[in-house]
């Protein structure tokens, strides 16, 4: 699974290039996220602007990333589409993750 990434200060912005994060790519996606967290990236913005569909396996990969960050940092989600937001509401993960409209605001939230 392809991702785009850039660093702004000590914040890593990850933007999946795939439109779907489902069971066929979830393990690969989780591996890429965990590699970056283990490399010291503890403040991450996950920009889901290009993602149309996430299933429970994809959501599990995002939750695993948050768990891997632990208490030393945070993972903030931005630019999520309404169709994907439904999954977060159904699973109550909208209460777990900070979900912010724009990448700029997400960066501000993690800089504070």
């Amino acid at each position, binding site marked *: 699974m392809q991702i785009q990434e850039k660093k702004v200060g000590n914040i890593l912005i990850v933007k999946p290039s795939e439109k779907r994060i489902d*069971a066929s790519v979830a393990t690969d996606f989780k591996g890429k996220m965990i590699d970056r967290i283990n490399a010291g990236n503890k403040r991450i913005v996950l920009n889901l602007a290009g993602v149309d569909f996430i299933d429970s396996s994809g959501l599990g990969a995002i939750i695993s990333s948050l768990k891997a960050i632990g208490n030393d940092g945070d993972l903030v989600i931005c630019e999520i589409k309404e169709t994907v937001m*439904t999954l977060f509401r159904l699973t109550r993960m909208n209460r777990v993750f900070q979900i912010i409209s724009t990448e700029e605001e997400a960066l501000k939230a993690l800089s504070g």
Partner: protein
Amino acid sequence: MEDTHPQKSVTFVIESRLENVSLVGVAVKAICESIPLEEIISRNIELSVVEGITNAVKHAYCLQQGNNVETTVLIFDDRITIKISDTGKSMDPQRCEQDCREINFEPGNSETLPVGGMGLHIMHSIMDEMHYETASGKNTMTLVKKFR
């Protein structure tokens, strides 16, 4: 609820590989939109179907390729019914019922967050009816969404 004859029906058969699951998902979404159902409802039905087929590939066939997963879509006047069938390992009915219920965790405690086992709950939340049965070695998950 299958006492009436469907207006239309179609069956998709895929080999049990996770890469194939989205093929049925996008087809079901397109069918839902053609009924027409709203995009968000169509996408949610797609999500339920993807969860059901993924369960069959992962748990009934234990990710072993070379098996079939059959998905039949039946469109009635007042509802859409989707039947997902496999011939692999059956689900434990008690586990099935338990997983359909609320996902338990404390939002502020990341250690309690689930990383799996959410699929049945998602399907149960989206669909109006959900049944699972095993007969003659065939497991079938039936999903029903009524039209409002």
